[in-house]
């Protein structure tokens, strides 16, 4: 589904990602692990098309090089980024935001937009599964939400938009065990042969709940080693020291 070839990403003329090559097939779950400052978040921003991130090379998504597309075009094609620090937008109510986003994606696919009533029952169903209090939905987006509530809101959005490629940027940061379980269940419920995940994390803990098919170590701007889920356990024991020079 996604084939990254010779990707180089610079921010303010500084090269963060040097030469990344990665292929993710439909239905696969890949984890990228690496020390702080290695450029993991840069990868997630480059994949979602954030301004300020100069990317060279090729990111092939279902046969199309998405480097030519802007942020919302990539989102409308089914790429979803679960933010490490979800943004607060005062005055914009969560319910309203969710419906606007769902309809924007539907419109781009030529599908019929969903009305307020239909949407409410859809959201109710999905938020109950994620143990999200419906009161939270009538609050302004992420304003005053605890870390755990913000992350659960991200997973709710993911379940509403039904993307094909999900990038999770350090989703586990700031979560306690219970929140971690709820989030992981939400993610696992969405695993399917048609959907791929790229999980970015530097703690192994999340991977106990969302078992990856492949694990890659990211250091010095590129992938330095790949393996299966056992590699994550190795890192847990030995740390990243041997990959840094």
């Amino acid at each position, binding site marked *: 589904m996604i084939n990254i070839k010779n990707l180089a990403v610079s921010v303010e003329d500084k090269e963060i990602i040097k030469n990344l090559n990665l292929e993710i097939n439909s239905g696969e779950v890949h984890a990228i692990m690496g020390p702080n400052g290695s450029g993991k978040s840069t990868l997630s921003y480059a994949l979602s098309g*954030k301004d300020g991130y100069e990317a060279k090379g090729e990111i092939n998504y279902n046969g199309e090089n998405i480097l030519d597309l*802007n942020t*919302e075009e990539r*989102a409308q094609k089914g790429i979803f980024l679960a933010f490490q620090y979800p943004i607060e*937008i005062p005055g*914009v109510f969560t319910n309203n935001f969710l419906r606007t*986003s769902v309809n924007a*994606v539907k419109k781009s696919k030529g599908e019929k937009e969903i009305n307020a009533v239909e949407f409410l029952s859809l959201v109710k169903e999905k938020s109950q599964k994620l143990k999200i209090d419906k009161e939270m939905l009538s609050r302004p*987006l992420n304003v005053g939400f605890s870390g755990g509530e913000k992350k659960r809101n991200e997973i709710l959005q993911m379940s509403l938009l039904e993307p094909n490629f999900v990038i999770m940027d350090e989703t586990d940061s700031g979560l306690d065990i219970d929140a971690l379980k709820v989030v992981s269940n939400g993610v696992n419920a969405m695993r399917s042969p048609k959907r791929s995940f790229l999980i970015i994390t530097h703690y192994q803990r999340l991977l106990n709940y969302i078992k990856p098919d492949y694990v890659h170590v990211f250091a010095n701007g590129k992938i330095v080693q790949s393996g299966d889920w056992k590699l994550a356990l190795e890192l847990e024991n030995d740390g990243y020291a041997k990959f840094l020079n």
Partner: protein
Amino acid sequence: MSASDEIIQKYQDGAEYDHGFVTDIDTIEVPKGLSEETIKFISNQKKEPKWMLEWRLNAYNRLQKMKEPNWQKPKYPKIDYQELYYYSAPKSFKDGPKSLDEIDPEIKKTYDKLGIPLEEQKRLSGVAVDAVFDSVSVATTFKDKLKDIGVIFCSISEATREHPELVKKYLGSVIPVTDHFFATLNSAVFTDGSFVYIPPGVRCPMELSTYFRINAQNTGQFERTLIIADKNSYVSYLEGCTAPMRDENQLHAANVELIALEGAEIKYSTVQNWYPGDKEGKGGIYNFVTKRGDCRGNNSKISWTQVETGSAITWKYPSCILRGDNSQGEFYSVAITNNYQKADTGTKMIHLGKNTKSKIISKGISAGHADNTYRGLVSVHPKATGSKNFTQCDSLLVGNKCGAHTVPYIENKNSSSEVEHEATTSKISDDQLFYCRQRGLNQEEAVSLIVNGFCKEVLQQLPMEFAVEAQKLVGISLEGSVG
């Protein structure tokens, strides 16, 4: 009365539209410039009683001794008051566009984006509308219903003839004739406007809108509105519309006076989108309005809600004089300036009575090369014990070529009162835009969503039909400003 006078009279009183009279209208000479003759002509055309003409001439005489003010931030080129026409004859459809295809495509695009129905679009652009009979008859049934409960809603000229005792009692009692240059000018040459009177204990059953006042098409440059809510009554009044209104008159200097007697409440909402000028800022309308409300009776309430997105220069301070004990004044405002627009707007809350309350929520959004100033005064008189004020002014800046300013004057002369003022300045952050776009919204939709969130508290105050249109308008006004 000559034949042509009779025809004008019929037209002004909202009689049936007759295609035949058009040619006759063309022959009337309309005087140019400001003089006693012009004022007499206006008064005559309006068939005003003698005391009204004297009132106007008195204002005109005082005007001779006054100077145009120059302390405001937005400066404008000098206006030659002798070059203006102070009376405009009703428009003839002969000269208007034959169909919507002939109007400026930019304007047509805006109409479509605002969701304005085609018939309405035609009316706004001056294309002859077949359905004019319908709107006249709708208006007539509406007026009858109001008459049954004693509500008077008519043009101000009609009021001077039909209800002179009310007009004499209240006209000029909130905005004195000599208050300032533009108020005096308006008092001398006002041509049109609304008169509303709600009798005691009556809650006006529908929102009164200028649209329903017959012949609202040709809004005068010097409008005069007088709204009186008698004891324990309620009225909600709407003015303006979201569609961009072009007008050959460059200066709009209206006077609006509101009087709320004991226990009464007046809610006045404005959505203004006058032509702001082209992308270089040329040719836009100057919107200099004086609006003042007098909470004359105890327990009365006046609230102003405004969404100002048009005009080259907006210069207005809807104010409340909180005279009666326990009276309340509210001011909710969204002022958006883009390209080269300038706004200097705000409010004055004057606390005179005891336990009076005022609330000010002002949201200013500045983009392009525009300049947006909030100027306000909260004054608590020494005798206004137990008064409270809360003010929140927030500015949103888009880009670094625009300016946002806050100039609040706070005068607290009473120890048992509480006055609180907060102001913040922020921008639409790149992170917020990126978040929305990653959820599929394009740049424009994202800006519209964020800005509407910023203005939410004010837009909530608008009556329902205005609120929906206003939200769309807010989104459109910032087109092209981000990215």
